């Protein structure tokens, strides 16, 4: 016996599709983050670095060949580095 779609069925279908889109978007965004990390920068043990700078084992000698850019929202403590 054939069963016709009711109003509640449509609502359920929309809900399922919306969930699917949300999950796909989340996975895609997550993958992009991983890719960005791979070509970016490294998280370092800042405490150890500053200790070595204080003791004179390392230095704060300004490098050549760089430019400052507006902050991207990341920080050394954000856990985004490798």
């Amino acid at each position, binding site marked *: 016996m054939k069963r016709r779609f009711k109003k509640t069925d449509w609502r359920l279908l929309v809900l399922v599709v919306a969930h699917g889109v949300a999950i796909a978007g989340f996975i895609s965004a997550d993958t992009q983050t991983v890719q960005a990390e791979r070509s970016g920068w490294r998280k370092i043990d800042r405490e150890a670095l500053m200790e070595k700078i204080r003791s004179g084992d390392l230095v704060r000698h300004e490098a050549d060949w*760089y*430019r400052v850019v507006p*902050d991207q929202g990341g920080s050394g403590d*954000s856990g985004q580095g490798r």
Partner: protein
Amino acid sequence: MSSVICELCPKLCLIPEGGAGDCRIRVNLDGKLCATTWGRPSAVHVDPVEKKPLFHFLPGSSIFSIATAGCNLHCKNCQNWQLSQRGGEAMEEIFRAPPQTVVGAALGKGCRSIAYTYSEPIVFYEYVYDTALEAQAQGLKNVLVTAAYINEKPLRKLCQPIDAANVDLKAFDDGFYRSNCSGSLKPVLDALVVLRQEGVWVEITNLLIPTMNDDLVMIRRMSKWIVAELGAGTPLHFSRFHPQYQLRNLPPTPAETLQRARREAMEAGLQHVYIGNVFGNDAESTRCPHDDTMLIRRTGYRIEENNLVDGRCPKCNEPIGGVWE
């Protein structure tokens, strides 16, 4: 707090405050990119120049050799990974040696040149440049031992005080660079051309890793590229792989593979093709490409005889490329 983009090498790392570049030693501190190992080498030795290897550069001389931590490539076969794959903050041994100290020590040890070597001098660029200028002023020559993964502008500036370079051309295959070294091939080829244009004496090392980069067709293509772009007189050193770091599962390169690669390179037109890391073979001596006269006979790093006369073959008087005095 600002992020910075390091424009030294093709990776163009975008580094947030407190982070380091992929090389681990160029660190963003308060919006300023800092070369944290400037004047702070972790390796200091006196070597025979043949060890670099440089066979056409002041043969038989000693070369003062320095390196700091860090590298912008991450080769699975790295021989110096304890040095190259660490940041300065992780090093146990750090010497305090600003440029004047290095140059003074090199002169004191009777060296004729200084090598920036072992890890990757590109990443401690500022220390290399400042030391090389000081060395040049004191009559010493300067040598880079490098993978040449660097952008054009910084390289052209660095070439000014540099006399010679041994460039590690890891394979003539972009896929190998990406999967084994986390780099790419084209910037290295571009850098080789720039070095030549800037008048730096260039020798090339190609480490042959069994099954990974020992394909003879690729070796022929690489050799032909060297002949066309750098010249037939460019020395090429095929070096024997020993299981290291993350490639301990592979065997050492068979001697026959090295011999076959050498034959292939010479058939492609290269005049000086050497085999390294194999003690006591005829392919570590220099012969005249025109009449086969023995010019420099070597056993390991030792010079047994040097018959060159003012950089020329004593028999046919042909000039042999290199820096001989």
